[in-house]
């Protein structure tokens, strides 16, 4: 029993060390991952928020694309009653799809800004100490950008994965509620995926501006004095 415990302890110790027996190196990415894990509950909520918005965006993009493709196919011949109804839906969608996109983007910016600002305020002493021991404000900003981009990437990836499951399911269910009894076509296309990724990157970049300005403008002396 004791031998087994000893072996486990040695294996655990070995994992924490490099192949040459020296302790493992600390890299900025390792630091970012550790800090993201430490604040995992906030990270989880931020990822969920971004994923939901990405899902909503891709859902509307797919509906828009579906209607566009439908009318391309139905452009010739006498329009049926269903296509007349769908045309009305398309007219509404044409206005709404932009509004929904802007809304998703604005909310994503808010999620990123909120999470990053809380992170910077909460870790004020830690970030101030890093600067005091010689890490430059650009490098400290890199650590904050890295952790937020990790959250945005995880959120967008989760949203896209969820949409991969949800959109075919909704297509099978005919979306009768959303289409007012109509068989609303859904088309999942690569442009929508690309737009969702761009939406995430854009909101990440914009949402990070205020917290980064906080870091650059803050003085490590003031932070350390406040903490003392």
């Amino acid at each position, binding site marked *: 029993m004791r031998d087994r415990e000893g072996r486990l302890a040695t294996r655990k110790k070995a994992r924490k060390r490099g192949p040459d027996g020296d302790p493992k190196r600390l*890299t900025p990415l*390792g630091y970012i991952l*550790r800090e993201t894990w430490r604040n995992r509950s906030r990270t989880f909520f931020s990822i969920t928020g971004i994923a939901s918005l990405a899902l909503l965006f891709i859902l509307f993009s797919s509906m828009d694309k579906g209607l566009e493709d439908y009318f391309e196919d139905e452009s010739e011949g006498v329009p049926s009653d269903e296509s007349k109804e769908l045309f009305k839906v398309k007219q509404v969608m044409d206005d709404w799809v932009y509004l929904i996109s802007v809304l998703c983007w604005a909310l994503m910016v808010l999620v990123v800004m909120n999470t990053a600002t809380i992170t910077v305020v909460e870790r004020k002493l830690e970030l101030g100490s890093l600067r005091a*021991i010689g890490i430059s404000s650009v490098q400290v900003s890199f650590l904050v950008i890295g952790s937020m981009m990790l959250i945005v990437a995880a959120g967008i990836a989760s949203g896209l994965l969820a949409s991969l499951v949800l959109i075919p399911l909704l297509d099978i269910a005919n979306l009768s509620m959303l289409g007012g009894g109509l068989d609303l076509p859904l088309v999942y296309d690569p442009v929508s995926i690309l737009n969702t990724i761009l939406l995430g990157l854009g909101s990440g970049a914009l949402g990070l501006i205020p917290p980064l300005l906080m870091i650059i403008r803050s003085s490590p*002396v003031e932070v*350390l004095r406040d903490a*003392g």
Partner: protein
Amino acid sequence: MPDRPLIETVDLVKTYRVGSSTVKALDHFSIDIEEGEMVAIMGPSGSGKTSLLNLIGALDRPDSGTVRVKNVEIDRLGEEQRARFRKHNIGFIFQFFNLIPSLTAIENVLVPIMFEKEKPTRKAADLLERVGLGDRFDHLPGMLSGGERQRVAIARALINDPLIILADEPTGNIDSETAREIVSLFKELNDEGKTLVLATHDRLVAGRAKVMVKIRDGRMVRGKAHSRDGMMSLSPKEGGGREK
């Protein structure tokens, strides 16, 4: 031209705004610190000890006056240059240790060099062993006592092999027995040629220093230096350097 002292501050003035009032932290303060000295700066809270340390450590800029360290006028450097200067020349030790809670002891020692290409992990391990924490490499700060955390902070301050170590109330948050061990460690570092500047209330720390400077209201009120012939007195001088 005679050799300049390692640290030279001339006629420093530093004021802070606290609410609507202005507090003068340093009032035309001048001091020279030679290489290899161990200087204890004593004085009541708010006397200007930490402000002096912040200026010497390139963390802050004076309102007027000059701070010269290793012949570099650090108050004239830009933000990024000062960060680089701190990294390579200054080791900071804080009263509340300021360790990163999510990193282990050895990772905390490696923090100042995490952006560097070369990462001397063996050196970090040696430093932890040297401060008596050879069996605590993988412990998080939360699992360490106050004295052990301060030892990690000392190891972190030494990772870049700085010439100057600045410690702000290094024994202010630990028990007297551990404080004695920490002071012995400082003495050891000083014997190896490191220059130490310690802001402290602790007479134990001040007693082991080669030079003791008392400040009040941002001015030097008294100074004493140990020498081979006994104690020398330092007296305050406006606008000048060190007097003996």
